[in-house]
Structure formats: C-alpha cells, structure tokens
C-alpha cells in the first residue's frame, strides 16, 4: 500500500513538474500575449512592442508598394496606424500601467526608428521593382 501511495505521489509530482515545464517552455503562446493578468517584464514588453512595430512596418511597406500608394500622406498614415496598434496593444489589450515602464513616450518609441526605415525600404523596393 505504502509503495502505491509513494508511486502515485511521485506521479503527481512528475505531472506537476511537466505542467510547470510546459508553462515555461511555451512563453510565446498567443494566449500569453493577449492575457492582461500575466505580469510583464520591462524587457519582454519592450521586445514585444519592437517586433509588433517591425511586422506592421514590413506589412504596410509591402502593401503600400504593391497597390501602389503614392504620396507623403501614406507615410503619415503608416505612422498613425503603427502607433495606434502599439498603443491599443499595451493600453487596451494588456492594460499595463505605462508609468511602470517609463511612460507612453518610452513605450511608443520602442522600435520606432527601425520600423520607419523598414517600412520605407519595403515601400520603395516593391514600388520600384513592381511598377517600373
């Protein structure tokens, strides 16, 4: 009997460890990114916002160039769209307290310059190669 109890306890412990490992092994699950209850580290949130900006920049650049959208107004529109998405992500979806992460300015400028250059590069390349 004692042996059975011991083995079942050991199994439970092992299961719990596996569950814990799963939680740690899948930090990049979509659910985790959308859950406002999960606490965010300054670096983690900064990296996340950086990559969101880059993806938005690349996609907008490709779409703007493929259509093609011509004129400085589309650059301004991209800037507004990208900033809106980043703001919506941390303020509406994650509901983080921006003061803990250095304020709106610090969060909104995360990856901004890199995404601007990436957007311009994609826009110019697709426009030049696809329409001339």
């Amino acid at each position, binding site marked *: 009997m004692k042996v059975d109890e011991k083995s079942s306890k050991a199994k439970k412990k092992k299961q719990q460890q596996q569950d814990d490992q799963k939680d740690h092994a899948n930090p990049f699950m979509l659910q985790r990114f959308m859950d406002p209850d999960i606490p965010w580290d*300054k*670096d983690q949130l*900064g*990296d996340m916002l*950086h990559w969101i900006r*880059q993806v938005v920049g690349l996609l907008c650049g490709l779409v*703007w*160039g493929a259509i*093609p*959208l*011509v*004129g*400085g107004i*589309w*650059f301004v529109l991209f800037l507004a769209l990208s900033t809106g998405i980043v703001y919506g992500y941390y303020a509406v979806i994650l509901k983080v307290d921006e*003061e*803990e992460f250095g304020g709106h300015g610090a969060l909104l400028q995360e990856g901004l*310059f*890199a995404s601007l*250059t*990436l957007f*311009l*590069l994609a*826009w*110019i*390349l697709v*426009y*030049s*190669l696809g*329409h*001339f």
Partner: protein
Amino acid sequence: MATLRLLSSTFRYGDALTVLWISLLTAVVCETISYFVIYRSSSYKHLRSSIDKASKKLDFLKKPSGASATSKNPKKIDRFESSLKESTRDLSMFKFKSGFVVAVVLVVVFAFLNSMFEGKVVAKLPFHPLGLIYKMSHRGLQGDDATDCSMAFLYFLCSISIRTNLQKLLGFSPPRGSGNMGLFPMPDPKSN
C-alpha cells in the same frame, strides 16, 4: 552572383536589389566580427549582466508604489545609479574600441557601392522627399526629379533596418537600462 545579375537585369531598378543584398551581407559580416571581438568575451558578459541587475534593482527601488516604497533609500538608489553609470561607461568604451573594425568594414563597403552606383538612380521614391531627406536621396544624381533615389539613401535605410533587427534577433542590442548613460551622458538637471 549570377542570379543577382539576372535579377538586376530583369528589373529597371534591379540595382536596388544589389544594394539590399550587399547591405544584408555586410550586416551579417559586421555582427560576426562583433560576436568574435565583443560579445563572446567574458568581460562583456559580466558587464552586461551587472547592468541588467543594477537597472532592474533601480527600477524596483524607484517604483512609485508597492512593497519597495517603505524600504526606499536614497543612498541605495544613488549607489545603484553610480554603479550603473560606471558599468555603462565601461561597456561603451569596450564597444567603442572594438567597433572600430566594424566601422572600417562599413566605410569600405560604402566606398565600394559608391564607385559602383555613382550618379545612378537605383530606385524610385513613392513620395516627394523634403529637406535633409531630399539631400540624401538625391546625393550625386543629375536632374530635378525628386523621386529619383540614390544609392546612399537606400543603403542608409538597408543598414539601419537590417542591422537593428539583426542585433535584436541575436540578442546583441544594447541593454535598455543603459539609456543616456554611455560615453557622453546628458547632465542631470537635479544636480544643478
């Protein structure tokens, strides 16, 4: 190389692809050099971990509310701030010395591209640039068409976007806690 030539000849502005590939290759070479010269060394790892630790502790101590509020100690904050400044200065010096090799590579590649595409329109801009952007995008080009793009502007865009994201991807980007504390820090307004 043959594929690149074929692609370049297929498109009217195929030279843009050549600039893109060359800057991609340069970014990879520069990061490889940086890895062997800077990031692999134990002193860099030690400095980086001490900056991370100090900035995390400083953030915790400076939090407006929470458990740390009662244990706030200005002396402790000052100590962490000075250690963070010191480590960041050391890291900047370390990178400055070793980054010289990378700078040489970048200058050589830029000179090579300049000789390849001097006076050539490598791409067409989908907007009319103004001021400084116009000066850069029209550098060395003949004619008045503002939408003509020179190699310098395209290379600038490529090198900034590719290098920044490559560094981020490889985990080589400078630590966040080191902001405004490098070789030339801004003066602290409180000290006046």
